């Protein structure tokens, strides 16, 4: 997993609640058997005026000029500012893959859907939750000031705004550790292989029917 410690980046404000995973990456792109290459189709239905399909060259597609990521001032954005319940819907990990592939490293919102939240951290994205009022304020600032950038320090759990204001955020210590070190969950869990083995033996003894196949 890609490591994350500190990131400074341009902020793109996406002013819309309940952004679901179908919006983040529409289903026709889930047919890929790879993990990469989803960036050009991130928010496909909002970004382009036509219907997208896999394998197409996006360079010639008509862009929706109203969509935030198409505006010149937000080109190169790597911090996404979003509204409540971001990432609701399916468990598709293609959603964080697409966000990451596009170039986002940090997403800030008042709340996230559970499965998306999990998936994002496993792909090197940092998700930060601030209360509604703070997010509102960041929206106003990012919209008012062209070139608005945030400095995100995971180690210190701090976000610094261009005016020098410092906002602290909470992050689960396990997730923080994994992100800082770029650690792979599986390797970590396998360090507990003996505990898993022991549990499995007891479990099999107590409930042997869980260990049988259809006859």
């Amino acid at each position, binding site marked *: 997993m890609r490591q994350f410690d500190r990131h400074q980046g341009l902020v793109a404000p996406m*002013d*819309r*609640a*309940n952004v*679901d995973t*179908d*919006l983040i990456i*529409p*289903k*026709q792109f*889930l*047919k*890929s*058997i*790879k*993990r990469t290459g989803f960036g050009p189709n991130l928010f496909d*239905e909002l970004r382009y005026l036509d*219907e997208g399909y*896999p*394998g197409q060259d996006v360079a010639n597609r008509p862009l929706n000029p109203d969509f935030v990521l198409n505006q010149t001032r937000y080109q190169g954005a790597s911090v996404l500012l979003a*509204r*409540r*319940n971001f990432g*609701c*819907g*399916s*468990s*598709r*990990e293609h959603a964080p893959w697409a966000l990451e592939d596009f170039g986002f490293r940090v997403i800030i919102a008042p*709340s996230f*859907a*559970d*499965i998306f939240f*999990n*998936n994002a951290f*496993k*792909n090197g994205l940092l998700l930060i939750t601030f209360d509604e009022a703070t997010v509102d304020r960041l929206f106003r600032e990012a919209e008012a000031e062209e070139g608005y950038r945030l400095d995100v320090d995971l180690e210190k759990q701090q976000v610094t705004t261009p005016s020098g204001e410092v906002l602290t955020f909470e992050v*689960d210590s*396990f997730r923080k*550790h994994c992100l800082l070190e770029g650690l792979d*969950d*599986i390797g970590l*869990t*396998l360090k*507990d*292989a003996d*505990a*898993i083995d022991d*549990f*499995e033996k007891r*479990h099999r003894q107590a*409930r*042997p*029917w*869980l*260990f*049988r*196949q*259809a*006859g």
Partner: protein
Amino acid sequence: MAGQTLYDKLWSRHLVKERDDGTALIYIDRHLLHEVTSPQAFEGLRLAGRKPWRLDTNLATPDHNVPTTLKERAEGNAGIVDPVSRIQVETLDDNCTSFGIEEFRINDARQGIVHVVGPEQGATQPGMTVVCGDSHTATHGAFGALAHGIGTSEVEHVLATQCLIQRKMKNMQVRVEGELGLGVTAKDIVLAVIGKIGTAGGTGYAIEFAGSAIRDLSMEGRMTICNMAIEAGARVGLVAVDETTVEYLRRRPFAPSEEYWDAAVADWRELVSDDDAPFDKVVELDAAEIEPQVTWGTSPEMVAGVGAQVPDPAAAGDETVQRGVSRALEYMGLHAGQQITDIQLDKVFIGSCTNSRIEDLREAAKVAKGRKVADSIQLAMVVPGSGLVKRQAEEEGLDKIFLEAGFEWREPGCSMCLAMNADKLGTGEHCASTSNRNFEGRQGYGGRTHLVSPAMAAAAAIAGHFVDVRDFGAERAANDDSQVQEA
């Protein structure tokens, strides 16, 4: 000591290890796989030179991409016209073969939507932890199993370690007491719950559905409800074990053998919340007050009773909510104050892991029997959840009822629930759908989805617009019901 909730019991039964940081390793008993969220996980295993921890917990079937017309299906994988879809299904076949995982392939009679197949095979059992790379895995909680949807990284993690890293959720109880009105179904209950608590209302919780109205439901009905727990934001939906659960599982292929049956049943009977178990949140609904539900917007919480009107954005909560409602109405081509029953439809879809089981098809068939799909409907399709559901329905003559009424009778799969195969909506088309998500573009680019129960979908197909199924032969349905139960 205070009692334990069903969720607490399931959690402690599977706790391998608690870590200092508050996360825990939870042992997984059943892992279901399908073609969309597994290829990258198998690739990950291969790259790291890892093997599945335990083979016999895994069961796979392709469902999302499979075509549903007989002509294409007759050719097996070769009949999948879209080459990208075909590669995905073939990749699942190859991965299952090379890793030694049991799979019900495209034309196996047992193939179907993974959340229909697991329970139908008895592969989902009370007291199990069940995971699948699909958010509607909550469905399996209907059996008193702890069932989570997981992402692809977690699919790989479960394959490699038989465990999942979890944090304990909070407990919510949704109590639905009383009797449902005639023609009102499990789907209406769950849509009403989502309308009440919102699509983020269950975030961070495991929701246990309880109360007499839930107890009175069949396993199919309970699955419909748990299926949509995720649409209320909860990864986990649960119903306690009772006689209905046990009877459903008896003699299913994967159910415990004779040798262990009694011990298993005794063990399952403990899977109820203790009377004094504390819940962090309790939500109550009166079953008698629930009307047949119809969603009018682009999020499942945008729902109303069939007798209601499309709401006015100006009267809807704070500014963010108001903007959401306005945008939804614009996308849906509806205006504030419009009667729900005035919404004209173009297509009707009866299927998906929410409502494609035998009981769902029976409910729809009761309404369709002896009637005709309205001329204004371009396509009304019924897609059974599995090959076995299809076979059962045909034995009961339901296929003939649908075909005579003008519905198409398809082969099993996810189909137009998410339109990854060729079944989809065109731009601007309104669809009465028994599926679970009405997000923008979900059923096809620019498509407009209205979520309803199977009976409401069938009635809408006949009328060409939404109608209250209770005014629509509900009495006849009630009579048929008593016959079915006696038979």
